[in-house]
């Protein structure tokens, strides 16, 4: 969930009133936001770097507000205020409009063929006669960063570039060139570099290093030039220094390059709808023309308003309220979804503005009606759905066995399903290749290399962590292990195992053997060669030679028991003899 940080003072100024922290928290809650933290730059710095560093930092109060991940229109102060003011019916939602420049001289961006392999899409627009201030400028930069981190998927899907239009002259060309042929002065640098040098330059940059991989291994890097060969940007890495905007910039050229055209359009719409507020003609955006390689021409930003019709009855039924059509239309209008009743009250026509790309289905509209109505005003009801409950048989058996294993004097452990290869292989004296273990591709540490193929390592580690406890230690666990199984759609399956260990100054094989007898008694399986269970000598690297037996029941081998091998005991950092039992329980269902 993205967090937007806004100055309390600016927020209240824009909202036209003050709130206590509690009141503002309440308003956020109702609207689906979360006032996450009240802080200041000074607090943040002293928390992150220590009190000394915070000296002189601003102590202006900041509100950190959590915004739902699909509400890109709330990612800046401008949008938050607009959303809340409309919600509180203090203003009407603005109407965003795209116009062609008065002199007919539209800014043009030409996309060349070479971009197809690396980053095929681009969209553009112009914010004409904008007035920035320090706060507005900061917010403009912040919003781009928030969009980059969220919908743009860390610039992989979309990258935004904003330029001082008065420093460049169109038409602009979006192309892709070999890195050695691209040469320009990157933003805030003092000299020119080639594209390859730029990548090296930013390899240690805490922010930009995360984006290098997007183009690094491509033969051609994307780049935008103006008609004089000035580099606007090398997306998605860095803009040129030449075109950089400042708080004095009056005309901004916005370009978004993308691998996902839908998202590029959304990003452009959000950026221009939010900041056209500060243009001479409020909420009016100047169009730009984008020409594709096939000659197709598109005008951006789209700023499309879409109309949907939803039956009032459906809204009421889905929420569980009974509001009149006109009151539902009013609720929706408060969510920036301008609505009115049509067709003799049988329908509500809803206009979806370009800021609400999250509205993709009637259910999204219904949710907004419910939010405006107030979730906590909805009458709670109990569904009349009549059903008979059933337990999952395997879990039912597990629950029954757990109770009786505890009654038999064994204590239940709960160990991790993920572990290291070493735990299930080396430490038990087997080769990892001979296990049917499922391997994880991206573990951050060795603890998450594989899914366990046995419960035994987890129990041994539990004892190792509890060596101070009085002996004997008697533990059990009934839980799932995972093994590869090519007959399953995903190529693996869980298996429910029962494992128990006895750890004491003597091996206590008779106790573990006795526990097996008790478990079989509980499962009504008699000791018998034909229809019951029996154990017979076996060899297993985890067990001491001659002290291991295989357990046969239900016509199959269900597991083993025995005295653990001293090497196993040592490798799990234990010192006492230990016997163990591990069986699968699914055959007893």
């Amino acid at each position: 969930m993205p967090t937007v940080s806004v100055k309390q003072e600016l927020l209240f100024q824009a909202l036209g009133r003050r709130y206590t922290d509690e009141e503002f928290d309440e308003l956020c809650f109702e609207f689906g936001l979360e006032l996450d933290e009240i802080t200041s730059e000074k607090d943040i710095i002293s928390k992150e770097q220590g009190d000394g560093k915070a000296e002189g930092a601003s102590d202006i109060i900041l509100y950190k507000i959590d915004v739902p991940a699909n509400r890109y229109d709330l990612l800046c102060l401008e949008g938050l205020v607009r959303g809340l003011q409309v919600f509180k019916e203090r203003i009407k939602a603005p109407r965003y409009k795209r116009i062609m420049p008065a002199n007919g001289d539209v800014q043009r961006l030409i996309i060349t063929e070479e971009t197809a392999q690396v980053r095929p899409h681009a969209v553009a627009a112009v914010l004409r006669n904008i007035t920035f201030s320090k706060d507005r400028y900061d917010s403009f930069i912040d919003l781009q960063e928030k969009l980059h981190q969220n919908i743009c998927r860390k610039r992989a899907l979309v990258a935004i570039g904003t330029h001082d239009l008065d420093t460049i002259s169109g038409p602009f060309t979006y192309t892709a060139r070999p890195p050695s042929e691209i040469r320009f002065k990157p933003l805030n640098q003092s000299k020119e570099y080639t594209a390859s040098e730029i990548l090296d330059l930013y390899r240690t940059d805490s922010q930009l290093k995360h984006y290098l991989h997007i183009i690094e291994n491509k033969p051609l890097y994307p780049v935008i030039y103006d008609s004089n060969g000035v580099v606007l940007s090398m997306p998605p890495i860095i803009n040129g220094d030449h075109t950089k905007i400042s708080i004095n910039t009056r005309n901004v050229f916005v370009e978004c390059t993308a691998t996902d055209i839908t998202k590029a359009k959304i990003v452009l719409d959000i950026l221009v709808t939010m900041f056209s507020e500060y243009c001479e003609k409020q909420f009016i955006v100047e169009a730009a023309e984008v020409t594709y390689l096939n000659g197709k021409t598109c005008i951006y930003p789209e700023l499309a308003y879409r109309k949907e019709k939803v039956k009032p009855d459906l809204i009421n039924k889905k929420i569980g309220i009974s509001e009149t059509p006109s009151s539902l239309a009013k609720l929706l209008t408060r969510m920036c979804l301008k609505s009115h009743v049509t067709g003799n009250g049988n329908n509500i026509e809803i206009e979806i503005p370009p800021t609400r790309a999250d509205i993709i289905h009637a259910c999204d509209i219904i949710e907004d009606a419910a939010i405006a109505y107030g979730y906590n005003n909805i009458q709670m009801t109990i569904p009349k759905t009549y059903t008979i409950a059933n337990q999952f048989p395997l879990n039912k058996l597990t629950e029954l066995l757990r109770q009786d294993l505890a009654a038999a004097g064994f204590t239940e452990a709960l160990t991790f399903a993920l572990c290291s290869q070493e735990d299930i292989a080396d430490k038990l004296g087997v080769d990892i290749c001979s296990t049917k273990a499922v391997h994880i591709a991206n573990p951050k540490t060795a603890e998450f290399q594989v899914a366990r193929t046995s419960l035994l390592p987890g129990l041994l580690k539990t004892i190792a962590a509890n060596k101070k406890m009085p002996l004997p230690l008697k533990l059990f666990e009934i839980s799932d292990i995972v093994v590869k199984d090519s007959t399953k759609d995903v190529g693996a399956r869980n298996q429910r195992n029962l494992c128990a260990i006895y750890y004491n100054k003597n091996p206590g094989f008779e106790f573990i053997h006795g526990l097996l007898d008790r478990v079989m008694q509980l499962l009504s399986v008699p000791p018998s060669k034909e229809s019951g269970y029996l154990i017979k000598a076996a060899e297993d690297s985890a067990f001491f030679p001659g002290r291991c037996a295989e357990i046969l029941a239900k016509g199959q081998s269900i597991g083993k028991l025995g005295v653990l091998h001293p090497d196993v005991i040592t490798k799990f950092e234990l010192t006492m003899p230990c016997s163990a039992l591990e069986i699968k329980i699914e055959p007893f269902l």
Partner: protein
Amino acid sequence: MGANYPSLPACCVALMPSSEALGTEHCQRQDTGPPVRSPQVIEAEQRSSKRWELTPEGQEIVQEGSHEARVFDSIPAEGLPQSELMKLPSGKVGFSKAMSNKWVRLDKNADGGPRIFRAVESVRDSVREKLQLVQQGEAESLEEKDRNELKKRKLLMEVVIKTYWIRKGSAFSTTVTKQETDLTPEMIASGSWRDLKFKAYNFAALGIMPESGHLHPLLKVRTQFRQIFLEMGFTEMPTNNFIESSFWNFDALFQPQQHPARDQHDTFFLQDPAEATDFPMDYLKRVKKIHSQGGYGSQGYKYDWKLAEARKNILRTHTTAVSARMLYRLAQQKFAPAKYFSIDRVFRNETLDATHLAEFHQIEGVVADYGLTLGDLMGTLREFFTKLGISQLRFKPAYNPYTEPSMEVFSYHQGLQKWVEVGNSGVFRPEMLLPMGLPEGVSVIAWGLSLERPTMIKYGINNIRELVGHKVNLQMVYDGPLCRLDA
């Protein structure tokens, strides 16, 4: 019975303290045999008093005068070289005290080295006077600060005297009868118990814990949650498949392929077996269409949906993957209302801290029926949470990729004095349900929460590793109470 015994004076034989205190209470667990305490033949009461006494050095000063006075007295009119003065028994201590009292002065430039002279005609030795008062038993007449000063100089000490006052006890006797510790089969057979005296039990001691095994606290809570769902008529889902395909975990839930949850940083992907091989192909085509083009009244996400991405195997990130399989299965039959639940492990490749592990248990409830409302979801949640002993609930609008409307559930925590999030819930999106083939009018409401969080709050555990995994504190498991969520 006391009348037959010679009497002790009504009160008091005072005994000086012995090394062992009498009559201490036992509170340790009994190691062997029942807790027995002798009957009270005599009763002892401990008393203590304080007294000030002179230290040996203090006594010496009473005899000889204070060190500083002795130094003063030993200096002749013509003074004394400092080196000689320091050789006197009271030299060192006396000199510095006499200097600070300004009784003597030091001439560093005198012939033959530094020399000490008397600075006043005569002195009054108040230290000696004060100590004399103490010796006469009049320590109380000294001011507190003087006493402390003298104590600091190790001239005085405070002596605590413990005495025991002994009087006849309730079972006072001058004859010694051997008391029996406990009843034996022989006594019962012979009836001798009638004439015997038995030592009293010490009921303040704890008993011996029975030998037993113990269930794990988190799983005791799991049992209670299972019970609650069963009481509410929910059927348990088969969640015994930790390995899931991205298709069922994400795509089936209408979670787009570029969603951050599908990132390497959040999800464990599998190297082996890396891909799922078998999908219901008709359904998969409908899922592809809803993502890439929309349909069923939805705009869709309009991106290039890739089968390769859906094939990728992962450790499931939520049990909702199983709910998706169950709802798909439900859609393949003639529709009948269903209530499902599960409590099982899920996995996240996240940064670990005191409250987050890479695996945890998710609790999930799902109801599928015609015409379910948001009010029904809230009512169901109210019933569910009431059974957990949580009555004050409120709901916050939220965003989940696969539910709309979505609501976070908050409950008022009396201890923390604030609203805390206790679960997440919503109505499954039509883009998830309709491609499965569920009838149009069917709504599916669902909610989820973690098993660990309420358990940690319930038992006041701050570090999740003490509860889950091999680093568990077994003593905590041994000592755990019953799990009664609504108590």
